[in-house]
């Protein structure tokens, strides 16, 4: 049968590409995590779970894990709250709707590196526009490069700024599928604006909300570029989360095995969380 041959061919190509580009690197990383090697060219030595023991025993791992949770937790929270808010604004009757909608998506289109560099420039302690602005208001300057909490707040703010449009778009699409009659029925029934949001909008957006939180959780927990480009995990490791730790160990300290172990543990944690999440919030509503 021609159709079947074509099917196997397409599947075969897809499998080969997946194996080459995803499975093999993943396998290789996993392999590295069981080996001791201090560069990519040295002869690897199989040491079993020793890298894992070392990594899990270090406070820097747990500190990075905690910072990852703080970073992911706050970015997701703000992205979702702001995303729903913006989506509802953009769904309402605004003048020049297509233009406003287009503008709202803009941050998402910018390459992360551009955003990071622009913000660095804006926050520059001598010539930055933010620094100047703060001075005008009578303050000294923002110690964003010296204070861990401020640095964390900065990367969270940047991430929220860049990726909220994605969430906004997802919710905006979700809002289009809410039948207008539901709002009308609720208005006649006597529900006020907040009650309509709580009893209609939010439940109707629930499937979108589930997927968006899941996607944002995966992306934000693994997000490397924005933190590395903005703070390099600093100051004093104040913004170092697991991806940055893994990178630093592998490519700066040349503890390749340990870096790979950090990645592997991070992967396992994320997998476990997603598994539990799907169990707790199934995408299709269960029939009771």
């Amino acid at each position, binding site marked *: 049968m021609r159709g079947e041959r074509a099917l196997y061919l397409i599947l075969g190509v897809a499998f080969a590409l997946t194996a080459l580009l995803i499975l093999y690197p993943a396998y290789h990383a996993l392999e590295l995590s069981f080996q001791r090697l201090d560069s990519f060219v040295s002869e690897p030595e199989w040491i079993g779970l020793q890298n894992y023991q070392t990594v899990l025993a270090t406070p820097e791992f747990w500190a990075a894990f905690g910072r990852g949770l703080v970073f992911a937790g706050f970015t997701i929270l703000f992205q979702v709250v702001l995303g729903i808010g913006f989506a509802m604004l953009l769904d309402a009757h605004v003048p020049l709707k297509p233009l406003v909608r287009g503008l709202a998506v803009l941050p998402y289109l910018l390459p992360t590196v551009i955003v990071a560099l622009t913000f660095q420039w804006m926050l520059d302690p001598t010539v930055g526009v933010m620094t100047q602005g703060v001075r005008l208001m009578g303050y000294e300057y923002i110690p964003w490069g010296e204070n861990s909490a401020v640095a964390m707040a900065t990367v969270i703010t940047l991430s929220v700024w860049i990726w909220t449009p994605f969430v906004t778009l997802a919710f905006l699409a979700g809002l289009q599928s809410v*039948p207008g*009659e*539901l709002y*009308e*029925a*609720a*208005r*006649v*029934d*006597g*529900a*006020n604006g907040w*009650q309509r949001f709580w*009893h*209609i909008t939010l*439940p*109707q957006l*629930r499937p979108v909300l589930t997927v968006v939180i899941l996607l944002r959780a995966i992306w934000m927990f693994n997000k490397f570029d924005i933190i590395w480009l903005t703070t390099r995990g600093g100051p004093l490791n104040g913004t170092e989360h697991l991806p940055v730790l893994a990178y630093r160990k592998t490519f700066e300290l040349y503890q390749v095995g340990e870096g790979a172990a950090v990645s592997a543990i991070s992967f396992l944690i994320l997998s476990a969380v997603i598994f539990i999440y799907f169990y707790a919030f199934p995408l299709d*509503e269960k*029939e*009771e």
Partner: protein
Amino acid sequence: MAIVKLRDLTKRFGDVSAVESVNLTIDDGEFIVFVGPSGCGKSTTLRMVAGLEDSTSGSVHIGDRDVTRLQPKDRNVAMVFQNYALYAHKNVYDNLGFGLRVRGVPRQEINTRVMQAAEILGLEELLQRKPKQLSGGQKQRVALGRALVRDPDLFLLDEPLSNLDAKMRVRMREEIAKLHKATGSSMIYVTHDQIEAMTLGDRIAVMNKGRVQQVGPPLELYDRPANLFVSSFIGSPEINLFDGALVGSANTAAFESAGFSVPVRAEIGANGERGQTVKAGIRPEHLKIGTEAESNLSANIDLIEQMGAQTLLLCHIGSMRLHALVDRNDKVRIGDDIPLRVDRENVHVFDPESGKSLLVN
């Protein structure tokens, strides 16, 4: 319960007039049906009564309150929608109680009223189900129940049966009629289906192009249509219309067309002028096969449709086509020339310009 008054109610979208000067008084406990083709303004009128649409001018009174500028929730009306508009994530019980819950009615009272409504509509077994586990008929019963528990001054029903299959539509029609009898509430019911209108309404308001064409009890609309539009909208199969002229006067007044002449009521002869160009309407069910002697017109049969109890004949007289609904026992064959007769009180005559019936002056 309340008397509802619509005064010069008008809605324009830009230059387009959707509803033009609707004046109507709905008595306490009356079941009134707005009927008309799609786009005739019936739904828009209903939505203005609900407060979902602002009126351009005119007013809506419910009881002794002017509600024209009030929010829907402050009008004490309940509405049933074509697509049911049930809250998908809430079970039947919570759907029924929602309107009371958001108004802060105590839990105990919500329970009492929800259970009452559930009993009236036979929903007791379904209270824990979600809307998607219900059939179309059950969904619409829940929507009716949601209106019922509110104990509103006025029920508004916007094509509530349009999404149901034919059998369920007949059953739900009966249920709505029973519900109206049981509650004695005023109801406004919008439909494009003239059979729903005829069977349900105490009175019917026929609308077209944003205007009320005629308001009256179902049989009055059928027997004495005020204009051409009403005559052809009410009645199925549709009324036959013929071009012709008025001849004779008083008791000899008749409608004359190419190939036939039928007597008309004396009032029509009095209201019209002799020789006036008019349109005559004769309902298919009023054309009977008679003997040669008593017949008014002779038609040739093109097609025979068996409908069960009756037989619908598609015929022609010269170039004019007409339908006749005759007894199934009448022996007819395609190609036959048949003598047809019609009683003078069943001949409706209209002014072709204004469309107005010559029966009302």
